[in-house]
């Protein structure tokens, strides 16, 4: 009975382990979705559907602070993501408001607002990379 309980607990822990390391999450979620937003600067959406794609990308990024602050995720170097570090948490959470501005900009189909939100988005990425991105 005790062994069964241990197995169940182990199974639960495995089920809750975050999928992918931090770099994989960056390349799967943040990079492609931020690029959809950045691309508006050079390729203006032509119709509602294309603006919706931009809005969806902003929503995806809005959700990433939770994703990259999940305990248990590893970095690509095998070290744990520093979710306990106050500055990391602050950097990660800065993505939310930046993406929120992008969402509003996409909903308003405002190129100026997109321009402004890309400043925030770019800064949010840079601020974290300055501290936490590995140097060669």
């Amino acid at each position, binding site marked *: 009975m005790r062994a069964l309980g241990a197995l169940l607990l182990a199974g639960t822990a495995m089920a809750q382990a975050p999928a992918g390391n931090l770099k994989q999450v960056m390349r799967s979620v943040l990079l492609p979705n931020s*690029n959809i937003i*950045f691309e*508006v600067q050079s390729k*203006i959406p032509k119709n509602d559907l294309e603006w919706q794609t931009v809005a969806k990308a902003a929503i995806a990024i809005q959700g990433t602070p939770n994703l990259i602050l999940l305990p248990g995720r590893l970095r690509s170097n095998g070290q744990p993501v520093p979710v306990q570090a106050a500055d990391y948490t602050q950097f990660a959470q800065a993505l939310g408001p930046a993406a929120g501005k992008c969402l509003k900009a996409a909903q308003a189909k405002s*190129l100026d607002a997109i321009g*402004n939100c890309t400043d925030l988005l770019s800064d949010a*990425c*840079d601020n974290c990379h300055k501290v936490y*991105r590995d140097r060669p």
Partner: protein
Amino acid sequence: MPIRHAIFAAVAELMALGLMVPGTPAFAHHSVSAEFDLSKRITLEGQVTKVEWMNPHVYVYVDVSADGKKANWACETAGPNTLARQGWSRSSLKIGDRITVVGYQARDGSKVASAREVVLANGRKVFVGSPYDGAPQS
């Protein structure tokens, strides 16, 4: 028309008219080491033909002559805010300015470079890379 809107519209028109050269880099967020060969340091000397002041990277286009041939290089720098913190603005470089760009060439061999340093005609040297983007800092 707001300035940003005007710039975006102008870029879109150029693209629609086919006036942006093939191989124009996407204004994309990417890993520097994935796109550029950080073991291939290059120095480009030439005249500025265009500056695109956009996130996440500003692009400076430079006509470079070598071996009797002229090529237009797209030099990727840090984003507008990072450059602004280095004292740059969208008017710091003008069309026709002679500059020297030190950086790394694209892995695919295209005329795209990750610029780390720009030396202006007056000899002033400016770091233009994203700090801590994974590339060597000098």
